[in-house]
């Protein structure tokens, strides 16, 4: 009995020492996976995932607190990419967080109505609105992510969503009709 206990205790002790030492010796800082996840998110910063922006959501996924299907702007493509990165089964977008937009949108400010209150400027996470207090504001469309966060604060409801229509330069072709026996997407 004593041999058992002693042997095991000693061996365990040796292993414990080894591990404890190497835990300190081989300590690694930072968590590259968060960056990888963040790189896959659309950076709309809209908060629909219930996290205050894309990076917090990425951190939550890395910690295993959030599911991969909470980002409506990213939609199916982002879910697939995340599933691929994390080696889990892809799943459909969680409808609680919203629906995937099929055409990208930006917002436009009706410059005749805008009173220049700057509330929208403060709301925009990517500083895509320019203008100063008491002057009308404009959205730089190429920088607007379409997060719509600027819409609720506007006291005079002068911000409208506009769809970005595809042109011959941004067009994407549709997959053909797969016929009677349809291979499904992943």
């Amino acid at each position, binding site marked *: 009995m004593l041999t058992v206990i002693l*042997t*095991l205790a000693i061996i365990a002790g040796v292993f414990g020492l*080894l591990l404890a030492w190497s835990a300190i010796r*081989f300590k690694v800082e930072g968590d590259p996976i968060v960056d990888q996840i963040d790189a896959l998110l659309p950076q709309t910063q809209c908060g629909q995932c219930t996290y205050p922006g894309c990076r917090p959501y990425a951190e939550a996924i890395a910690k295993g607190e959030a599911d991969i299907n909470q980002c409506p702007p990213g939609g199916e493509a982002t879910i697939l990419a995340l599933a*691929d990165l994390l080696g889990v089964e892809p799943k459909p977008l969680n409808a609680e967080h919203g629906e995937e937009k099929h055409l990208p949108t930006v917002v436009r400010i009706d410059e005749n109505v805008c009173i220049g209150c700057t509330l929208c400027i403060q709301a925009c996470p990517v500083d895509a609105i320019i203008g100063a207090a008491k002057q009308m504001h404009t959205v730089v469309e190429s920088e607007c992510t379409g997060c719509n966060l600027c819409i609720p604060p506007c006291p005079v409801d002068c911000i409208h969503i506009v769809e970005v229509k595809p042109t011959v330069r941004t067009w994407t072709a549709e997959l053909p009709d797969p016929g009677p026996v349809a291979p499904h997407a992943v």
Partner: protein
Amino acid sequence: MTEYALILLGTVLVNNFVLVKFLGLCPFMGVSRKLETAIGMALATTFVLTLSSVSAYLVNEYILAPLGLEYMRTIMFILVIAVVVQFTEMVVHKTSPLLYNILGIFLPLITTNCAVLGVALLNVQEKHGFLQSLFYGFGAAVGFSLVLILFSALRERIIVADVPEAFQGTSIALITAGIMSLAFMGFAGLIKV
């Protein structure tokens, strides 16, 4: 030499650890969705499996057997394996970020790969010596790697297939594994014992 060749042949094909002996199935099912990850897992497992097969042999031969503690085998073996894995992970993480990127996430999973403990225990059961343990461990790992990699390439194809809804995902993957196992039965009798 023939003896070792036969051990290899036996563990890789005839008594394939995964398809015939039913060991290491969780990682076999779990990390076979993508070819790259499967290859990573295969490499990591080969390393750990061979190493722990030998370590377990040494522990058994030089600590447990002399002290008459054979019944503590399971505990000792799994402890050895856990430590080998944990240590490898930490070292790789620190010293080779590149390798860690490839193998890192798989290393912790290996502790709970039945094949690793299975090999250690089977070595004892079959009374393998040092070299035999080495080859047995390595053969088991190669067998595991072989079917894991084949399976992942197959799964990449199946994922595109028009599988009936109820069978999509793990169900069809298991059935595929079943057919693989069916095919491996063709090797039965290759080694007459």
